[in-house]
């Protein structure tokens, strides 16, 4: 086979191979959305994070505004410190409330921001003061049972 024709075919092969990798990375995978253009860091401390995972989403009003980058245990206060990368386009007030929600009944857990009314905005690196831990199903059930039992005693 002629060398130029050979080169052409091999070039074509390598080009569509690389195109396939790019297709997988950008269209199938999350490489395009993984890089939020400019981000800043916020922290929040929770008593209990439940099943929250690194790389999980941070949502406000249901829209993904950031990602969880790190979860650590603070040995001084016995709390979980969650570090989040927030999209630089969005600013949140000082009294924003960070809570851990579950998507659906069995879905993944995420951090939800309920925005407050403060004039001042949270600066990069700051810690969100008001947080609500993940709902632990066992605690909820036991609370429900205890309150039922208490109701029953009052009626007697």
């Amino acid at each position, binding site marked *: *086979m002629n*060398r130029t024709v*050979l*080169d052409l*075919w*091999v070039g*074509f*092969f*390598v080009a*569509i*191979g*690389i195109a*396939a*990798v790019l*297709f*997988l*990375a950008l*269209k*199938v*995978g*999350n*490489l*395009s*959305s*993984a890089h939020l253009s400019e981000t800043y860091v916020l922290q929040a401390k929770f008593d209990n994070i439940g099943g929250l*995972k*690194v*790389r999980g989403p941070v949502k406000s009003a249901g829209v993904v505004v950031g990602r969880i980058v790190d979860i650590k245990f603070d040995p001084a206060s016995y709390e979980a410190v969650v570090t989040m990368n927030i999209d630089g386009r969005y600013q949140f007030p000082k009294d924003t409330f960070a809570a851990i929600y579950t998507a659906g009944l069995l879905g993944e857990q995420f951090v939800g921001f309920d925005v407050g009314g403060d004039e001042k905005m949270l600066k990069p690196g700051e810690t969100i003061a008001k947080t609500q831990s993940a709902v632990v199903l066992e605690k909820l059930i036991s609370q429900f049972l205890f309150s039922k039992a208490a109701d029953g005693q009052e009626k007697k």
Partner: protein
Amino acid sequence: MFNPAALLRSLGHAVVERIWRLGFAARFMAAVIFYSGASFRRLGLTLREVYVSGVLSLLIILVSGLFVGMVLGLQGYETLQRFGSTEALGIMVALSLTRELGPVVAGLLFASRAGSSVTAEIGLMKATEQLKAMNMMAVNPIARVVAPRFWGGVISMPLLAALFSSMGVLGGWLVGVVFIGVDDGAFWSQMQAGVDFRYDIVNGIIKSFVFGIAVSLIAVFEGYDSVPTAEGVSRAITRTVVTSALTILALDFVLTSFMFRGTS
């Protein structure tokens, strides 16, 4: 007549033979890598092999990828609709292709399409004493014949696996979205939310790269080691396909257990 000594001897002979072959294969691999300088200095040699084992495998890889994806789309839809979560079709098709089916099935096809032809070529060269003739002319047959074919396979295989996965995703999309009517936006967005580039796609590419090395090495080794007769070459080709398939499946299990442990 029962002769325990002869039985033991034949057992020992078989074991020694296998170990010797394994050692020979290891020395052969070292030699291929040691003499592969020429296949990059004279790039034309390697390019020709990329053409033979890569470009000529395109058709079978693309068509099988499309059909595997279409079958995944049909079967996935059939199962997922029982749970009312047909939007998860995209992530199911994409994850099964990029993690497992892409590298493994492309590797199996590559072994039977390209590996067997490499074995046949080298085996026939040996049978017709072309390799000896090269040695006589002070041309190292490993550097001139074996190494370019090895590297041609190693370069082609990851690209073919990526093409297989891409075609499979398109096939799943074709069946799921175009024929059955799963929501287009949910198909892609669930896929993009669930497929991680580093965790799923890069691990799949690493798998296909390892399979490429294994299949190419088995193919050139079986060809080089074949008995130089018509029957010996045909047996070597059979061994290439069988050994490659078993090696791919076994390696896949080992790699998967290292890569995807269900943590994270």
